[in-house]
């Protein structure tokens, strides 16, 4: 039986508070993976996280302190 599975399989927190998120979409047949696709994005300390996965929200809630947000705003690189 074919099954589509979409999960957040990787969350990386960088030193400056940015959270790199990877979502994987797997196509399985009888439990055996036939293929997969990745989708990535970065949740910055100033991001709107209202639409993020709960796991990302939970991590952002801990990591994105006011100090981190302020530091991030200050470090945004203008080139």
């Amino acid at each position: 039986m074919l099954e589509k599975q979409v999960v957040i399989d990787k969350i990386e927190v960088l030193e400056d508070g940015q959270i790199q998120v990877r979502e994987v979409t797997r196509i399985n047949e009888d439990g055996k993976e036939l293929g997969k696709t990745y989708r990535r994005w970065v949740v910055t300390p100033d991001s709107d996280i209202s639409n993020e996965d709960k796991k990302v929200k939970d991590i952002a809630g801990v990591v994105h302190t006011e100090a981190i947000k302020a530091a991030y705003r200050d470090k945004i690189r203008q080139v």
Partner: protein
Amino acid sequence: MSVDTTARKQSFTLDGVTDTFDFTFRALAATDILAIATTGGTDTNLTYTTDYTVALESDGVGGTLTLVSAASTGTGTLTVYRTTTNKQESDYEDYNQFPADTLEEDLDRRTLVSQELSETNNRTVTLAITASSGTSTTLPTPSTDKIVGWNTAADALENKTISDLGAVDPSNVAFTGGTIDGVTLGATTAISEATITVADGDDKTGLTLTQNDTTNNPDAVSITNAGTSHALSVSQTGVLASGKYGLYLASNAVQVNAPLAYITQINASSDQSALKVNNTGTGAAIELTGNAGIKFPATQGASADANTLDDYEEGYHTATITCATSGTVTVDTSYDQLAYTKIGRQVTVTGVIIVDSVSSPVGDARISLPFTAASLNETADVYLGSIITYNVDWTASRIPVALMGGGNSYFTITMMQDDGTYAPLDASNISATDRIGVNITYFTA
């Protein structure tokens, strides 16, 4: 005549030419002298008068054996020996003169026969003198594929099979050379310091191990090396034929649980490569054929080494546009995907997105990317890419480029001008249905 020697046989070299051989032992009659030719490991009994003749010395001590044809007898060894006619034909009558010569010859005959029996006895199997007097040395009736051994009481011989001997303790078996052919070992046996050599022309596999235990599924071969040298050393000294390899792993089974070959370094403190390929020739160090590829782990095993390729990943990024000051730019969810490929630390992102709507956007338009860029030395972490736009209202005579700074996870559409500065495009210049395409390569954090 007396008998002064105990010898009954002599050996000579057959060279195919020499046809006379002088022997020195005593004999009573020429017909008592027999001969065997050993050529190529085969003994052939020669026939008196047909193959040879004998002339005894007049005193009966020694004589000459003459081959009828030295050439046809061949080369090898000639054994000349004596088998005295074991008879006593003298008739001693009463009151006659004492027959000294006849008696002496009869005594000589007895002595010669006794010598021959003694010599023969020396070549037979005998029990030790300490053996029990009740021990029988009578051989059992010959039986196909049987060996002869002592019975349980150890007082008689009987026919046995190999299995009658019970399990053989391999520690009691020593191979000091020669050939092992067709040896089957049981489950608990072991060979120590075994060397198997296949001679040229033997057309035999040096070692064949077949594991048929699908109940317990033990390893077919298990090598444990507590020493510091190679656990397995394969040295291919012959020039390989086409399609042959120094080490060959093949399976026609459909492998679903594990790859055909697996090398693992299970000591986490080791800093050495799990697999090292050294090529001093001019061919490729590693060659992939067939449905081949190199697959990296889903979770990168990050390496700080400057010469290590540690990651490969393909995927998509759902792009968003944020305004540095205020307002929003919303990307059409049907056209918000950018594709990325990450090779090691290098990421390339490409694609076109379409704006769905805007709401009072003010400030730099920041278009998101899938990874945060690495911060590098000085301005080495300013990443540039090409931009294409559709309907975006950017200032005339300026050229847009995608510009990304280290530590950021977005790029800006930055306008550069001839002989002047550059500045990011303000989001207020972006409207609904505008299209923004990008192709940018940068390094990840």
